[in-house]
């Protein structure tokens, strides 16, 4: 009963979100629209890590590596082809291939969680150093100059598929980004209820047991990782499209730490939480940026510390636990919080 109710509520929420994405340009000012376009692009990135960390159990501290590679791949391809259509494909393909190679080393080497975090973090810092040092005429791919620490300015933004002369307006760019976020969310939702998604979660829960049941955890983790890389790459393209600029700070420790904070604050092991966390924190950072009293690192650090110590499950799971608790209370279940609504179903 409650399960069906939840499913219905989710479907309604998704449809409502779709309508909101379509209608937002009629309601919001262009400035606010740009703002939420950025939030949506970053939420895609947040989802990519939410999937591989929250469901795959892969502690990747360097998700920015794929995000940045996607951004640079998009920028280079868009400048060289003069058309954003194949560029978006490249932005997904290049990070996915990179994730495949890196993941092969990590998972087939059976490197443990902790080392995985350290290695992925190291990889993104390597990329930061490399890209930072590519200023100068000699570093170019086709027409596109990498620009070192200055980054690549005036990257062509999205155009209508295969029609480079027809560049998307900010309103249309928002709709593309918003629907991309919704699409990725739905894709991951469907994936997680599919048999393959269940295997992914099984491997997270107990690798040995999954292996004894005949699944190869290395293989499962590798493809989870690759999918996460591909989604992060897409986020990179959306991000570059938003600002028409990409620079090496996309790979930096600061960016890497923000993604971790979004997910920790929002709630690990959910898909909605990381989106909520991402929007909340980005909004907070924007607010801090507009005044001088506090340094944004100081506030972000304090937020992360506070959440880890006081709210280790994150905002969304804690809130939904509270709602569940209140709901059961109303129905006179004695207030025992049932995590999946089984208590209500048993009646």
């Amino acid at each position, binding site marked *: 009963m409650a399960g069906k109710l939840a499913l219905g509520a989710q479907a309604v929420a998704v449809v409502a979100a779709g309508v909101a994405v379509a209608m937002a340009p009629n309601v919001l000012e262009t400035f606010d629209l740009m703002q939420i376009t950025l939030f949506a692009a970053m939420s895609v990135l947040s989802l990519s890590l939410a999937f591989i960390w929250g469901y795959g159990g892969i*502690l990747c501290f360097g998700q920015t590596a794929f995000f940045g590679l996607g951004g640079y791949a998009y920028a280079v391809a868009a400048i060289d082809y003069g058309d954003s259509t194949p560029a978006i494909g490249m932005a997904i393909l290049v990070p996915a291939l990179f994730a495949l190679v890196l993941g092969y*080393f990590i998972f087939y*080497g*059976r*490197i*443990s*969680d*902790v*080392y995985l*975090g*350290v*290695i992925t*973090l*190291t*990889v993104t*810092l*390597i990329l930061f*150093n*490399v890209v*930072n*040092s590519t200023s100068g005429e000699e570093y170019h791919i086709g027409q596109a100059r990498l620009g070192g620490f200055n980054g690549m300015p005036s990257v062509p933004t999205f155009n209508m598929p295969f029609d480079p002369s027809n560049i998307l307006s900010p309103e249309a760019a928002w709709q593309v980004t918003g629907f991309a976020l919704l699409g990725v969310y739905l894709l991951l939702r469907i994936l997680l209820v599919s048999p393959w998604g269940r295997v992914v979660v099984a491997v997270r829960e107990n690798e040995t047991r999954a292996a004894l049941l005949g699944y190869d955890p290395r293989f499962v983790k590798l493809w989870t990782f690759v999918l996460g890389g591909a989604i992060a790459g897409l986020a990179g393209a959306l991000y570059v499209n938003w600002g028409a600029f990409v620079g090496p700070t996309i790979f*930096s*420790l600061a960016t890497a*730490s923000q993604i*971790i*904070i979004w997910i*920790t604050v929002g709630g690990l092991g959910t898909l909605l939480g990381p989106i909520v966390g991402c929007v909340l924190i980005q909004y907070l950072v924007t607010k801090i940026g507009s005044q001088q009293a*506090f*340094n*944004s*690192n*100081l*506030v*972000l*650090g*304090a*937020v*992360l*510390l506070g959440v*880890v*110590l006081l709210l*280790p499950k994150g905002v969304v799971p804690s809130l939904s636990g509270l709602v569940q608790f209140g709901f059961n209370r109303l129905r006179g279940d004695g207030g025992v919080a049932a995590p999946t609504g089984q208590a209500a179903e048993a009646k």
Partner: protein
Amino acid sequence: MDKVAILTLNVVDGAASLCLLCLGLAIIFGMMRIINLAHGEFVMLGAYSTVVAVHHGVNIWIAMIVVAPLFVGLVGLLVERTLIRFLYGRLVDSMLATWGLSLFIVGLITTIFGNTIDGVPTPLGGFVIGDYRASWYTIFLAGMALLMLGLVYLLLSYTRFGLVARAVMQNPGMAATLGVDTSRIYMTTFALGAAVTGLAGGLLAPVSGITPVMGSAYVAKAFITVVGGGAAILAGTASASVLFGLVNQMAAYLTTPVYGEVILFVAAIVLIRLLPQGISGRFFKGTL
């Protein structure tokens, strides 16, 4: 010939700095299994405390060797009591919390001192080998690295504290049953690791650019070295420092300093793939 001498000196310099940087981390991570992502910020605090002390007229040697480790050791003590002690056994949470701590410290130092601070001059001057100039300070760093390795070895092997600390790290439950106050041992060990890291920051202050975000340059390098070194904290750290120092400096000589770092990281990843237990998992089994 001169070139060989100067290259050797560069390798010694690279290995010594790495070794100093990693020793504190090896104590905290290697012994306590706490992934301290604020390690780079402890180095940064060591450097800042040295610089501030020197600017207030403290002798530079006292600032480096006394003030920096003392200050960072106290910070470590505070951090352990207010933060880390709630997170033993929660590996991922401790990583996240120390990451938050690292951002917090960076923000705090930026708020207090701004984005830059005047450095301190490198003491001791230089000497000449053929056509090349080298600094005596390099030799001093190498000496300090050896001295610290020796001191930590003596502390862990021959003192009562070292014995008890190793016992707690091996089996906290058993040690507690035998009447050891494990919480105090954890606290002391963490503070010790922090102090050694602070010393590294102090010693590196004259030869590095001092900014609030300098720690991020060290943290990845330090972790990769400790992980590459493996379970034996002293033998592992020392051997990995020498190996990676050699790779880094030779690669930097043959290409550019940036690619030197890249090649160092790639070499480290390949090494971990080949020896998942680290160097000491294969070659120095059972040593300290």
